Each structure stands twice: as structure tokens, then as C-alpha cells.
């Protein structure tokens, strides 16, 4: 599959999910804070790294993995390398100055267990396995998680969990 084909296919697969997930991040004007809550964010270090990786490899996306070994790691691929499908949820986009928004996906089944958490993609020294694009650089993307607060839970239609968040 060419990147062009995936670019056409991926948003279509994601579109169905976005309504349910309510996770689409509007692209904020430069320097502004997003007006609505987002499920995903990126650390300054990871953002700078993504700029460098994009210069090498072209537009990128993330798919959050599960399972053993490097499971639970976010896998970063050139757009079109990994095919997302109807089984995936589009969690939102990372907005980094100077490059295209970076879509972040996770399988729907995994999302059922992750939906109460906000994810920040960070980067640490290391050498992840899998086919993630950054591992030859000696750095590895990593997920930092926090629980959604009550306002965010309401915004994502997770009212049942409001008030459960530990102080």
C-alpha cells in the first residue's frame, strides 16, 4: 500500500470511531491551548525528536501496542507503513510546529481499558524492539499516563467515571 492509499483509507476507518470516542483534537493556532480536551499530548523532547524524524522519514503516525516485550509502547511509523483499520480508534492528533499533525491510534479492544487515561508521548534513551522508526537513534518513545479529570471525562462522554478519580 502506498502512503497515498493509506492517507485515504485511514481517516475513513477513523471517522467512524471519532464520533464515539469524541477524541478529535482541533488544530490550535500556533501558541494557543487547545479549546477542547484531548486524549493525547507530546512532551517537548518528543516533539523536537518528531520534527527530526519527520525530516528523515516523512509524515509519521503512532499505533499504541499491547502484549509482551515492547507491548505498551507507542510504535511510530511512516504514514502508510502500518495499516489501521476498523478495529482501531483514532485517539487524536499530536500538533507539533513545523510538521503535519501526527495521528495516534490504538486498537478498540485495548482502548476499552485505556479510555480513562490521558496519554503523553515522551522519549527516553533506549532501544525498543519492534519496527518503530526511532529505535536506531538510541531513543525510544514512551507513554506517560495520567487519569482524565472530571471535566475531561464529561467531555468524552464517560460520565459514569466522574468522581471515581482518586484525589
Amino acid at each position: 500500500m502506498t502512503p497515498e492509499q493509506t492517507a485515504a483509507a485511514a481517516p475513513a476507518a477513523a471517522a467512524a470511531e471519532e464520533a464515539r470516542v469524541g477524541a478529535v483534537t482541533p488544530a490550535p493556532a500556533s501558541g494557543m491551548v487547545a479549546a477542547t480536551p484531548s486524549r493525547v499530548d507530546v512532551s517537548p523532547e518528543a516533539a523536537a525528536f518528531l520534527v527530526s524524524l519527520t525530516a528523515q522519514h516523512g509524515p509519521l503516525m503512532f499505533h499504541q501496542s499491547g502484549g509482551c516485550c515492547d507491548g505498551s509502547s507507542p510504535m511510530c511509523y511512516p504514514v502508510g507503513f502500518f495499516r489501521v483499520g476498523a478495529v482501531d480508534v483514532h485517539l487524536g492528533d499530536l500538533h507539533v510546529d513545523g510538521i503535519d499533525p501526527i495521528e495516534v491510534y490504538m486498537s478498540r479492544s485495548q482502548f476499552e481499558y485505556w479510555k480513562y487515561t490521558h496519554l503523553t508521548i515522551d522519549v527516553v534513551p533506549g532501544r525498543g524492539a519492534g519496527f518503530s522508526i526511532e529505535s536506531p537513534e538510541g531513543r525510544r518513545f514512551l507513554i506517560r499516563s495520567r487519569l482524565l479529570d472530571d471535566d475531561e471525562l464529561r467531555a468524552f462522554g464517560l460520565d459514569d467515571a466522574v468522581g471515581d478519580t482518586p484525589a
Partner: protein
Amino acid sequence: MTVTTPPNTYAAPGRPDAKVAFKPRYDHFIGGEYVAPASGQYFENPSPVNGKVFTEVARGNAADVDKAVEAAWRAFDSWKKTTIAQRALILNRIADVMEANLEMLAVAETWDNGKPIREALAADVPLAIDHFRYFAGAIRAQEGSTGEIDADTVAYHFHEPLGVVGQIIPWNFPLLMAVWKLAPALAAGNCVVLKPAEQTPASIHVFMDLVKDLLPAGVLNIVNGFGVEAGAPLASHPNIRKIAFTGETTTGRLIMQMASENLIPVTLELGGKSPNVFFADVADERDDFYDKALEGFSFFNLNSGEVCTCPSRALVQQSIYDQFTADGVERVKKVKQGDPLSMDTMIGAQASNDQLEKILSYMDIGKQEGATLLLGGDRADLGGDLTGGYYVNPTIFEGRNSMRIFQEEIFGPVLSLTSFSDYDDAIKIANDTLYGLGAGVWSRNGAQLYRAGRDIQAGRVWSNTYHQYPAGAAFGGYKQSGIGRENHKMMLDHYQQTKNLLVSYADGPMGFF
């Protein structure tokens, strides 16, 4: 955690009395010889024991993979014609050489991966040796079949090798996981291109150096490198006939996507979040069996928790919960952490810095989710030369099965502990996971033990035991934990074609034309 400096410690590689001497650099092994990487580039390989670089390894790319696949196909022409007796003999000889060099391989494995030497000596390497012997025997005993379709028509079924196969190896048991894949593939008459994990690329070369003269050139080729640069070109190579992978779900999906383009089979082992279920009758007596169950509770520390079947969810029946978990926590407190090369060390280092960071990030989310920390919960600094190594204190969280620490394989010595009310509740919680690779059940009641084992949706249910991996017991996943069964002669099927000759012995025509 007790940090000790015991007397019986293996010398660290680099010292003159070390059991293994790593080379300063490892090339690829292609076509029976060491071959420099096409890129001319190498990457540094640190030991997780102290965080220091001890060798550098070829940074492979698609050109290297092409070369290895070509070499493998050249070798296949004659390798496929070897008799099963010849192949079995070679596998047995490999096992013998490994056995004669057990300590060398074990120290290499510990230095590359960080695992305690006593595990490498007692489990990793002996299991790998036995695995070669098992498949040497299995291939000798394998027969095709004949079917008598009618009096004059016979169907003959022959096993034939697939050809050249690709294998991508994980970093948690670098030698053993390689052998799980190599032994059936070679026994069946295939040639292999194997990519070790980039975190643990060195011990397989110690192995290769020992056995390289036993195998014809090109039958086993090793291409090192990063997943994206060497693993992906291997998995998507148009001239491999099968790809085998152990790892996580996203890469598993990606490998299936690549395999779908070439219409080749895959076997995948993708891990899990294994439940370890303790029924109330475990505590009926304070006897050897109770002691055994407490060991079972503590088994999440094996290989520093870096096991696809780590019993990382303990489910304990409410009626014994307080006492059993108190005893279990006390037992885990006795797990000795220290220099992985010491025979007294029970838990060593995590395999890489990013793995350490990931484990710490899960400890953080566990605390945020409101789980109660019963033990550990932080990084361990063992001091001295080990300060730079990647150590984590054995950790126990008490919480609910819906928490993320109960649902994701942290791949560290982190136990998520919860209770259940009755049998149905136990099965419900045990099966409330995306995965189904391993599980444990503990009970003095044989019928309950049997029923629970059948009701838990996992490929391997250890019943009144855990973490045994004998050759001859099929190992593989339900649900999102993968496809295929390793560790058993049925794995031969995953590396073989079936050739059917349908033969007519009738004298006359069929009568259609």
C-alpha cells in the same frame, strides 16, 4: 530488598577468568561466514548489568537481508535432501556442544540480558539444549501417511520443508526463544534467516561460534540490526516462505500485514497478562503444598518479570485473602536482588533502559489509579559498578482488574493483586483480558483444578505449578496472544508443506473422455 555480595559469583566478561570472552565486534553470519554489514555501520551493545557497552554489533539493512536470504536458498538445495537421520544427528551434536559449554552460554546470556545466572544455568540453556534433542527425536519419529481412497487409488502424504524462513527473536530469553524457533525449522529441513533482538544481539553469536562448523554453510544465517531496518525487510521479503515472531501486538499485526502481501504463513507469540488463581483450599494446611503455592505467587519475579507468561495478576479467594497475601508478600520480600552473576541472586536487571523507564511509568499509573502499594514501587540502586544497571524492586499492587496495571503486560517484577468471591468470579476475572497465553491455577481439589484449567481461555494453564517450559508441552496463545504452538512436535507442521501424491493403480481409463 537485601543486597548481598555472595562468594560464588561468576567473573564478569572482560575479566581474564570470565567464562565467556565476547569479541569486540560482531558481524552478520551469512552463508557460513562472518560478513560485514552493507552499511559499514555497527551499533553499541550495553550490558544491562552495569549499563556499559561491551561489544558492537552489525547494523543490518535490507541489503544484508537480501544476501542472507540468497545464501539460505543456495543452502536449501542440498539441506532439503539431507536425511532425517542426518539432521537429527546435527541437532543432537549442537545440543552436545551447548552442554559442554553451558557455563559459557549462561554467562553470555546473563551479560547480554541481565537475568540471574542461576536461571540461565538451570533453565535457559538446559531447556535450549533439550529443545534441540526433542526435535531431533521428533523428526526421526515423524511419518507421513497413506490413504486408501479406493482399491486402485492411494493418497500418499509427505512432509516437505517450506524453504527459507524468517525468524525474529525477542530479548527476554535471547537464546531459548531463538532455539524454540530454530530447532523445529532446522529439523524440518528449512534454512533460516534469524534476526536477534537489538537489545540482546550478542549471546546468539557466542552460540553460533560454537556450532557453526556443525551446520552446512547457509543453513542458519544471522542478520543483526534494528527492527525497522533489518526486521521489517526480513518480514516483508518476497523470498521467505514463512515468518515467525515473538513480541507485541502492533508489530504482530504489522508482520501479518506484510505476510499477507506475500501470502505466507506466520506464527506469532504476543504475550499476555496471565492470571494466577489461588483457591481457598490452598490454605487448608500449612504444608509443602502451601509453600509451593507461595512460590507460585512469587513467580512474577522470574527473569525480572520479563516473561510473556509472567503471572502478573494474582487472584486470591476472599476467604483466605488476608493471610495468604500477607504470607505471599513476606515470601517476595525474601527474593534476593543483586549482581546477576552471583549464584545467590534471584532477581537481576531489566533488559534495557527503556524497559526500566516503562516499568516505572506503570508504577506511576498504578499509584494514580488508586492501587495500594504493598511492596516495592521504585527503582533499585545496587551501588558500586551496578549503579548504572537497570534494576527494579519487586513490586506488589493491590487493586481492581479494570485498572490498567491489571490489563497491560508491564514486563517487569510487578504483581497486580486482587480477590475473588467464588469459582465463577475467579473465571470471570481471569478471562477479563485481551490475552490468553498463560495462566496458573492452584487448588487441592482435583476436579476444581481441572474445571478451572478448562474454563480459563489461555493456551497454557499451569495447574499447581508455574513457569515450567518442558519440550513436549505445547505453548501458544488464545485471543490476542498469537497464532501457533511452539515447544511441541506440532510446531513441525508450521515449518512444513504437505505433499500429496494421488496415485492411480487402475489399468484402464476413468471413462470421461
